[in-house]
């Protein structure tokens, strides 16, 4: 299968901080790929490099089959970027924004205008088309932002934390749109902090840690690495006293409860037990747990989870 993104050994350092240190990525054409990681993991730097905004210190990459360093304009004509902060013009109306982007993408004024009507309709912004974007809600801004990325169909669409800060309804609306875009054949490369988002959208997920890809696979492959539900022991004020991963079986659950007894943590006055699904934290901590780190609650997860 063709690769939409093929990056090898990408490194980037800002002053004394090594942000990316030998990053390798291979993204299949037509797939949805999620780059997962906590704040500061280098997700945005990765997007900035792949979208020609920042030159890597080392490494090579092709995007949509074009060499990033040799022909940045060639890459630019085959990608679109929806950055982390909404890249919309607040003073212009929604419609003026789309028309401007369409004109800048080489459409004539008549087809730019037709394209604007079509996109605003599709993104449920037709009623607000004549209003200044400054008056839009967060969800409307993100929808417009995404519409701007789609004024011309491009092969690879980059989305940097597309739903951060949105309410549940807007988030699901955006997920539906991203899914549609992917179904239409484009490759979608997105970054996110939310496991659920990667889970719902992505064919493949890569976990970024310490400037490298620490693990990758499908959502279920990654979750299998942490195991099943997590048993939590909560104190009287809902503070987490202990977290124990399970492998999802009754036996595993019993073992976790026995472990709680052994820790003698359950004897805390007013403590109670809760069971929850593995979170990004669990996946992330399990994958990135380092043997030399000082012991804390988290170290219980990695050891048990991967047995």
């Amino acid at each position, binding site marked *: 299968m063709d690769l939409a993104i093929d990056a090898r050994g990408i490194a980037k350092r800002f002053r004394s901080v090594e942000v990316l240190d030998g990053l390798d990525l291979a993204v299949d054409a037509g797939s949805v790929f999620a780059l997962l990681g906590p704040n500061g993991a280098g997700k945005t730097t990765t997007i900035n490099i792949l979208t*020609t905004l920042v030159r890597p210190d080392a490494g090579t990459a092709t995007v949509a089959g074009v060499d990033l360093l040799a022909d940045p304009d060639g890459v630019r004509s085959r990608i679109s970027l929806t950055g982390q902060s*909404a890249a919309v*013009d607040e003073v212009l109306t929604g419609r003026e924004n789309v028309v401007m982007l369409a004109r*800048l*993408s*080489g459409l004539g004024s008549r087809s730019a205008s037709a394209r604007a009507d079509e996109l605003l309709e599709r993104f449920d912004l037709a009623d607000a088309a004549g209003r200044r974007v400054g008056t839009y809600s967060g969800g409307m801004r993100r929808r417009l932002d995404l519409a701007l990325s789609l004024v011309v169909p*491009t*092969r690879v669409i980059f989305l940097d934390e597309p739903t951060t800060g949105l309410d549940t309804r807007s988030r699901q609306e955006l997920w539906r749109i991203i899914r549609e875009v*992917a*179904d239409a054949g484009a490759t979608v490369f997105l970054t996110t902090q939310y496991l659920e988002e990667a889970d719902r959208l992505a064919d493949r997920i890569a976990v970024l840690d310490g400037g490298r890809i620490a693990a990758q696979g499908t959502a279920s492959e990654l979750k299998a690495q942490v195991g099943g539900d997590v048993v939590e022991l909560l104190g009287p004020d809902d503070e987490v006293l202990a977290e124990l991963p399970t492998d999802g079986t009754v036996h595993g659950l019993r073992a976790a409860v026995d472990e709680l007894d052994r820790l003698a943590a359950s004897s805390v006055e007013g403590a109670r037990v809760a069971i929850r699904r593995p979170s990004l934290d669990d996946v992330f901590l399990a994958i990135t747990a380092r043997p030399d780190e000082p012991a804390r609650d988290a170290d219980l997860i990695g050891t048990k989870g991967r047995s």
Partner: protein
Amino acid sequence: MTTLIPAASPAPAAAAAERARPSGLTAEAVFIRRSITHSLRDTEALLMAVILPTMLMLLFTYVFGGALDPSGDYVDYVVPGIILLCAGFGASSTALYVARDMTTGIIDRFRTMPLRSGAVLTGHVAASMLRNLFATGVVVVVALLVGFRPTATPLEWIAALALVALYILAITALFAAIGLAASSPDAANAYGFILLFLPYLSSAFVPVDTLPDWLAWFAEHQPITPVIEAIRSLLMGTPMGDAAWWAVGWCVLVIAVAAVWGSWLFRRKAGRR
């Protein structure tokens, strides 16, 4: 062996998809139009562009004028200074607009498209030129109403206007670079403030030889004085000397420095906010 065909196979249209580079000066035209729209919708700035020149003209003619020049001809002296003062205020919003573009995500969108992204700045500079030529027009009309009687021939008027335009370009370029250097729109506003004081320390409002020696030296050698003297000479027939050469030289120098500094900042700030 059976092969499963995914329900959503890549559409052929998407495989051929490409964003065309806008032809000729389309990007420049689009950005100029965008910046003019911004200026027209910035109601407060637009009101200021009319009110400020009017108020300054009236203030300097009727309030300070009597004390500064009891003969009543102060209006003839002060017009070039007011024009430059207003151009400074009008251009200072360029720093704000540029900083706003650089600190929101919109600049990254333009940079990841196959176009000359510096055209965004061209748009802001062109809009500033129009705003400030308009403000200059307001100054001249109000001045004529309160007794400004220039002696200029049509050719001298054109030369004076060209010099004002060159000055607007220079100060706008400088403010655009300040907007690029600033970390936020608020910072851009603060840095730009100092430039607005320069006209007061020149021959704009009082002859340089009335200033204390050390200040007179500064006023004599700063860029605004030759620009004022050249405009005054063209409009009122005062002696030109070498003011025109200094005026043009200073403006060109400022434009060159701002352009080099600005394009360095513009490249350096890619992907960083």
